[in-house]
């Protein structure tokens, strides 16, 4: 039997909420379980340091893996929904005090600048992403000590295109905005080209980290992504997080990936 253990931050919630419905269609040969979710769901991240100073898998994942392994012959799949939060939030809103643009250079030497304000080289931002994800990469590698069948890193979910919809979704939280001293009038969404550029860089960094950690990297299915690479189906809970409908699509995709990988 395939045992799929899912863990991550707030982007795991859409999967958890979709799971009760999905279990009916998943069948008996594969089980899905959300081990940890939410901002504090996995304290310490994928790995923690033991008393001897060694990096070991997070005990939550370790215990869940051991429990899933109780029956001989089970195949364990560890699904990381970590490392995608920045991709979904960074640069979404224009910081009027410090606006920025990203400069890229094509192989023929042509320069492209998206956004406006202080210009930052694309490669500099990419290096920053990779530096930030270094500990995540080590965490993914550490998970292999649990001897799962495979480790899968979910790619960052695509981001929303429509700035009006982003503002509208954000306006659901007037009290939280007020608590942070922000009024709705102050909210300006960055141009879609800039947001997409930032997401592309985060996506690329996440992919590199998955490759270097030698784990699967599961990209959202084509039918979930628009032609412009933005989120293709109406499934936004708030400007950064997705609905259970999106979660259901991801779970279906995961099942397909597992069946395909299992041959």
């Amino acid at each position: 039997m395939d045992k799929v253990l899912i863990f991550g931050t707030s982007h795991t919630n859409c999967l958890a909420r979709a799971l009760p419905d999905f279990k009916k269609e998943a069948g008996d040969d594969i089980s899905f379980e959300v081990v940890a979710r939410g901002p504090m769901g996995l304290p310490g991240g994928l790995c923690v340091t033991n008393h001897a100073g060694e990096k070991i898998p997070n005990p939550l994942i370790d215990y869940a893996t051991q429990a899933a392994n109780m029956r001989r012959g089970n195949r364990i799949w560890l699904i990381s929904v970590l490392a995608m939060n920045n991709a979904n939030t960074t640069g979404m809103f224009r910081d009027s005090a410090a606006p920025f643009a990203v400069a890229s250079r094509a192989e023929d030497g042509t320069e492209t600048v998206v956004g406006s304000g202080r210009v930052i080289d694309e490669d500099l931002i990419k290096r920053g992403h990779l530096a930030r994800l270094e500990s995540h990469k080590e965490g993914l590698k550490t998970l292999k000590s649990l001897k799962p069948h495979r480790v899968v890193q979910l790619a960052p979910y695509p981001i929303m295109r429509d700035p009006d919809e982003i503002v509208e979704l954000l306006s659901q939280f007037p009290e939280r905005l007020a608590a942070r001293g922000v009024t709705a009038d102050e909210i300006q969404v960055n141009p879609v080209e800039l947001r997409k550029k930032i997401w592309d860089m985060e996506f690329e960094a996440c992919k590199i980290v998955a490759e270097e950690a030698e784990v699967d990297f599961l990209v959202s299915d084509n039918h979930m992504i628009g032609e412009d690479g933005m989120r293709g189906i109406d499934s936004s809970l708030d400007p950064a997080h997705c609905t259970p409908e999106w979660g259901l699509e991801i779970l279906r995709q995961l099942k397909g990936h597992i069946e395909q990988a299992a041959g």
Partner: protein
Amino acid sequence: MTKQDKHATCPYRGLPETSYWRNSVAETRMAKVQPVQGGSFTIGGEDLISTAGSCFAQHIAQHLLRSGFGYFVPEEPHWMVNPHIAQEMGYGVFSARYANIYTTRQLLQTFQRAYGEFEPKERVWKDGDRYIDPFRPFIQPDGFATQAAFDSDQEHHFASIRRIVEESSVFVFTLGLTEAWVSKDEGIVFPVCPGCGAGTFDEDRYEFKNFRMEEVRDDLLAALKFMRARNPDIKVLLTVSPVPLIATAEPRHVLTSTIYSKSVLRVAAEEVSQALEMCDYFPSYEIITGQHAGNAYYEDDFRSVKPEGVAHVMRCFSENYFDKAGKRKAGRRAAGKADGRVSAKVNDLLCEEEKLVE
């Protein structure tokens, strides 16, 4: 006439103990030697202190940050730049990301460039498809990927320098070298010889220059007057770096060149501090290199200054310039960090001069 009476009119009679070598150096414990005669101004909690100069100035910057006083760092990385990457890029090492400014001519030209009063034709070096700033060639590992980012960063850099000139309460400058490489046509002073880690050396375009005392003095005077014209209340603290030359381009021994260079810088600093009321000389050079220390403040390479030496310098600095009442105010302001003017970050020491021998 008694023997004692023979000294009755001696002008040395009645001078303070610090005027006597035996009392203030020979018979004083190394760490207690205190050659500062009191500052002509104090640094309070509301003051914004900026730094520039050679490697040793970095120690001053770090001390300012730890002290809780207002270390002014207007040039900060954009928040999109990862803090670890920003650290590699020299943010916070000095008040602006100008890296080491070794010569007084370079300081003057830095100010002039920031205000558009000097626009050298040679403003960028191409290294393959990367853009290198000749005036701070190692500030960005591998340079900039695009001209757009290079231009934008330079614009931000110059704006930060203008803020330093116009908003600083105290400017601390450490004189480092007299030897430099300059462009023959425009007289641009480079911090590092072209071809030594960045750029390409071309003897038709570049030449060696060892500044004389008058040149060092006049450039420093011009630079400080440039600041004062835009910021009449600014105070300046001059120091001379005790770090010897890593190499000399003069056809002589590096030790001889070092002593020449430090002597010139010391005299120039003295003359400028005498000429400008706004300006004090602070004897960090003497604290580290004086006979009382017997080279104990140097590492085994006789070049790198040990933490104990830095601590001695900074202790004298604090005792003579910090207004203790002001520290508390500054501490609160630094903790609040609301105006973003007081940096919470100082990077690891970087010394570009090391690139010379790579």
